[in-house]
Every structure is written in structure tokens, then in C-alpha cells.
């Protein structure tokens, strides 16, 4: 493995990441008292909407000075670059390339006997979730959410498969939480397939404040049976150090700031939600959740709580932009689609993907939407463009969509039931309950059956002018001092 200077390595814990973002000017620390009840998250929310900095709140109302709260760790491309150990101004395609390269070189975790997350151990009977400075994120949410930027560990009942996911959990009382990992999520699948049929509680561990690439790995669209801890090691280019939980056989990142150990009931529920989510809305997807009882809390002596102030352009905008796009590209390649590049633009709130292909047409567009909706369907709009369109150049993509997508023949729909994204604001309450929905591919490619000598020619300098004229125009442009 290539050994690089420390400044060029991915931060190996949350505190070194905060130090790096502070050094680059991407973190603002606030020493004045801030209210955990909406005000704190409101500051983080505004920052997301203005592409602003991360915040570290050093003085949280009602909580002792030992507690601090950090918001939106990697909600901007700059902070994502820092998480990878790259220069903060690294362009987005380089971040994609870095993720894809490191993803293909997984590094297994190592087990250690102890870690900072064990400095304070609180057994379940003394645990109190209200001792944690869990912010109320939005006015009108169903409650206070511990899991907006977390890493939830669960284990398959029948195999060695360990899942890391990022799932929301809401406080009900001192020891009870409700959560919304979708039934189609890997955690949901483990619970429904391996624990509920046998009436067994499922252990989970919610780790807060790990190194940012471990959280990124938790958000990744990873194959069933895949171990995100290996992925995290690959992304960090160093193994993740794991330490055993107090009340289960699960292992969590030893550098975590706080770990909540719990058991999910196989036969009990309680109210969960509503919650303002990553699509940028509070859609009313409440009342279909899981319920977990805390069995222990372990933490650092001076922990930093973390949250993502979810909504438009939150951390999922960048994390899923990368992990979702690479996963889509891999899946399309595996299914024989002639894909060249994939981009999931942050502004699309994980509902929109842009796919460029070496050969387009109706058949390819329909195949793309079919492949991407086989098991679950988080992306509902896919713009398919020819390979000469740069997927990262959104104006060029919009131009192709607006001009090349046939208003009738260019629309390719896949309808489904039981696997729709219940957070999609466009769905009715009835569709949300039955998880009924649809995805659509907008074929913005030239039909391959069109003869080349009759296919429209783009009216741009590089397409509709002779090389000699292009050269003279560019020389003139430069001589005028224009950029």
C-alpha cells in the first residue's frame, strides 16, 4: 500500500477529521450557549442550504461542558475531500475516482481489546438517553433523533454477515427508541428473515462519531453479505479498529465517541416519526417502524455528539452521490449495460441519476431502469445520455434531456409494489403504506438505428466549425484576454 505523508492520509478518527476541517477553514466552533431544541440544528440546516461550514457547538443548553455537538460532517464536497485525505478543492470526478479505486481494495478490520469509546460504561439499567445532548432537529418532528449521522451494526442470525448502515432512531423514553431502517434495508432484511420468525430480539449497536469514511461506508449501497467494515478499511487505506460490545457479540469502531447498545424487539412496536428527511420534506412516513431497548451506553469521557441536519443538501447529498453512483455503475456493468459514467447530483436528493452510455436507445434505457429496480428502488428518475455528454456537467445534461428525450417514445417506466422509497414526496399516503411506486428512465440518447448522416449535429464550436476556424476563434479569444 502506498505510504503518504500524514496530511495526505484519510483522518483515522472523528477528532483528527475535525482538526483537518478547522485547519482548512471548513469548520466553525461556537462557544456561546446554543439550544439543543431546534436552534442548534437550525444553524446546521442553514449551512447545508448555503453550502456553508460544519459546526462544533461547545456549549449546549441543559448539558454539561463535557458534551459537544458537531453537525453535518461531510455535507460538502470540500469536507468529503478532506475525509479522503485529498486537497479540499479536489474536483468531484476525482472524489468519485478515489472512492471507486479504494472500494475495490477492501481492508479487513482488526480487533482491539479496548478503545476510547469504553472510557465510560453505563449498564442498561442505569442508561438514560436524555443524558445525551440529542438535538430536536426540526420543529414538528415526532421526537429527538439519535441516528441522523450514525453507524448501526447488526449481524445476520444465520451467517457471519455483519451489516453497517446509517438509520434514524428516535428517543421515546430513557431506554426505548423507535427506528426506521426500511424493511428493504439490510438491517430490515436481517430482522425479518432471521429474528422475527424465531421470536428473538436482534442486538444492534449505534456508533456515533466514528471516522467519516466508516460512516460513508455505512451509507454505501453494498451487496447483501458484504462487510462494510472491510469497505471502510479500503476507503481509509487502513484497517478499522473494532472493539467488542458490552452486551452482545457485535463489534464497533473503537474510536467512536458514543455507542448505544440495544436489542430490537421481534414482537413490539411504538410510534416513530414523522421526520424531515434527506429528500427535503417531512412526508408522513410515520407509524411503520421498529422498536429497540437500550442495553448499555459506552462513551468517551468528553464525547462529541454528531448529527446531520437532514433536509435538502444534507450529508446524504454527497455521501450517496458517490456511493450510489459507483454502486449503480457496478450493477449496470454486471448486467451488460454499455455504461460509461454515472453521476448522482446532490441537488437531486438521491432521487435522480445521470447515466452516460456508449450505445443508447430505447432498449438500453428500459434495461437500465429495470436493472436499478430489481430489489429496491431508491432512485426514481434516471437521465440516460450519450457518452459525449459529461455526466458531471449538469447544464450539458439538461440540454441533452430537453432536446434529445422524445416526449413520448423517450419515457421508459418500471412500476413496482413493496419496494418503493416511502420517503419519496411524490407518493400518496396510500402508495407510501403499500410501498407502491415507479421509476422512469428519460432516454436522452440518439436512437442507434438512426443513420449517422441524418442524426442532428450539435451547434457548438467544437462540433459545427472546422478545426481551422476553431483554432482561429480560440486564438482570437485568448488575444482579447478572455478566459
Amino acid at each position, binding site marked *: 500500500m502506498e505510504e503518504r505523508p500524514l496530511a495526505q492520509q484519510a483522518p483515522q478518527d472523528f477528532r483528527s477529521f475535525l482538526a483537518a476541517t478547522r485547519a482548512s477553514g471548513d469548520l466553525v466552533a461556537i462557544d456561546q450557549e446554543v439550544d439543543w*431544541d431546534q436552534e442548534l440544528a437550525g444553524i446546521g440546516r442553514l449551512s447545508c442550504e448555503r453550502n456553508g461550514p460544519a459546526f462544533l457547538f461547545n456549549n449546549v443548553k*441543559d*448539558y454539561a461542558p463535557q458534551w459537544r455537538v458537531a453537525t453535518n460532517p461531510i455535507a460538502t464536497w470540500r469536507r468529503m475531500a478532506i475525509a479522503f485525505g485529498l486537497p479540499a478543492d479536489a474536483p468531484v470526478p476525482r472524489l468519485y475516482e478515489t472512492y471507486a479505486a479504494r472500494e475495490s481494495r477492501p481492508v479487513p478490520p482488526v480487533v482491539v481489546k479496548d478503545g476510547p469509546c469504553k472510557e465510560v460504561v453505563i449498564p442498561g439499567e442505569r442508561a438514560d438517553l*436524555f*443524558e445525551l445532548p440529542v438535538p*430536536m432537529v*426540526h*420543529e*414538528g*418532528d*415526532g*421526537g*429527538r433523533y439519535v441516528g441522523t449521522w450514525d453507524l448501526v451494526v447488526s449481524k445476520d442470525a444465520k451467517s457471519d454477515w455483519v451489516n453497517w448502515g446509517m438509520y434514524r432512531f428516535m*428517543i*421515546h*423514553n*430513557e431506554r*426505548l427508541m423507535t427506528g426506521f431502517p426500511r*424493511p428493504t434495508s439490510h438491517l*430490515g432484511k436481517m*430482522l*425479518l428473515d432471521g429474528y*422475527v420468525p424465531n421470536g428473538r430480539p436482534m442486538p444492534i449497536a449505534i456508533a456515533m462519531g466514528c471516522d467519516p469514511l466508516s460512516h460513508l461506508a455505512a451509507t454505501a449501497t453494498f451487496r447483501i453479505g458484504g462487510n462494510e467494515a472491510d469497505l471502510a478499511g479500503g476507503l481509509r487505506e487502513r484497517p478499522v479498529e473494532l472493539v467488542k460490545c458490552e452486551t452482545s457479540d457485535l463489534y464497533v469502531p473503537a474510536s467512536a465517541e458514543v455507542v448505544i447498545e440495544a436489542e*430490537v*424487539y*421481534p*414482537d*413490539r*412496536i*411504538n*410510534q*416513530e*416519526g*414523522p421526520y*424531515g428527511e434527506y429528500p427535503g420534506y*417531512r*412526508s*408522513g412516513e*410515520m*407509524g*411503520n*417502524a*421498529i*422498536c429497540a431497548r437500550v442495553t448499555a451506553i459506552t462513551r468517551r469521557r468528553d464525547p462529541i455528539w454528531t448529527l446531520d441536519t437532514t433536509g435538502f443538501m444534507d450529508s446524504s447529498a454527497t455521501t450517496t452521490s458517490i456511493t450510489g453512483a459507483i454502486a449503480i455503475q457496478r450493477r449496470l456493468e454486471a448486467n451488460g449495460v454499455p455504461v460509461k459514467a454515472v453521476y448522482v447530483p446532490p441537488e437531486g436528493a438521491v432521487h435522480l441519476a445521470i447515466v452516460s452510455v456508449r450505445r443508447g436507445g430505447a432498449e438500453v434505457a428500459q434495461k437500465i431502469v429495470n436493472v436499478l429496480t430489481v430489489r429496491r428502488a431508491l432512485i426514481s428518475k434516471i437521465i440516460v445520455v450519450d457518452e459525449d455528454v459529461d455526466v458531471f456537467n449538469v447544464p450539458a445534461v439538461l440540454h441533452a434531456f430537453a432536446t434529445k428525450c422524445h416526449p413520448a417514445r423517450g419515457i421508459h417506466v418500471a412500476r413496482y409494489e413493496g419496494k418503493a422509497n416511502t420517503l419519496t414526496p411524490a407518493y400518496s*399516503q396510500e402508495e407510501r*403504506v403499500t410501498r407502491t411506486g415507479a421509476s422512469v428512465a428519460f432516454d436522452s440518447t440518439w436512437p442507434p438505428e438512426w443513420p449517422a448522416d441524418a442524426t442532428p449535429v450539435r451547434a457548438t464550436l467544437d462540433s459545427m466549425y472546422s478545426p481551422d476556424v476553431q483554432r482561429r476563434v480560440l486564438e482570437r479569444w485568448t488575444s482579447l484576454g478572455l478566459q
Partner: protein
Amino acid sequence: MASEYETFVRDRASILSGREIVLTLRDLTPGRKKYRGVNVRCAVSRAPRPGEPLLWIRSVVGLRDPEPCSVRIVEELPDTFQAPPYSDFFEAIARAERG
């Protein structure tokens, strides 16, 4: 008992019937435990009654009815309801109401 609660409902009319119902309430008392949940059997009065805690009703998307009600708590219930994961919560509390 707190002096002010909120609750989230799918069918607003059904909880304003005056009969005893099952609800999850969120305690709005300022401080560390604000938004703590409690499951109760209760009766809701559209016009707030003296001596009863105020109750704010929110919809499934969290919008708050501008006029508060009041709530008479008959008994506190266990903090979970019997049902498999991902069951419809509102159907579960309807079953709890029927006993």
C-alpha cells in the same frame, strides 16, 4: 404529569370524539426530558378544560393544529405495543383501545 403535551394523529376527528382512546403523548415540559413519550389511555376535549393539561395535535407530516385541546389521562400504558416490526402503529393502538 406535565402541563402540556403534543400528539401525532392520522385521523384527527377520531380522537376528538370524547370517548376514551389510546395515544402516544410527547411531554413538552422544557428541559432535558422535553419530547419524552408516554403511552396513555385518555380522553381529549376539543375546548381545553380547566385543570387538564393542554394537548397540541399534529398531523402525520407534523403540522400543528393552531388551537390546543386538553387531555384527561386515565392511565399510563406500557411503553410498547404488541405487534411485529413494521406493523401499522395506528392499527396497533386501535387494537389496544379495544383491549
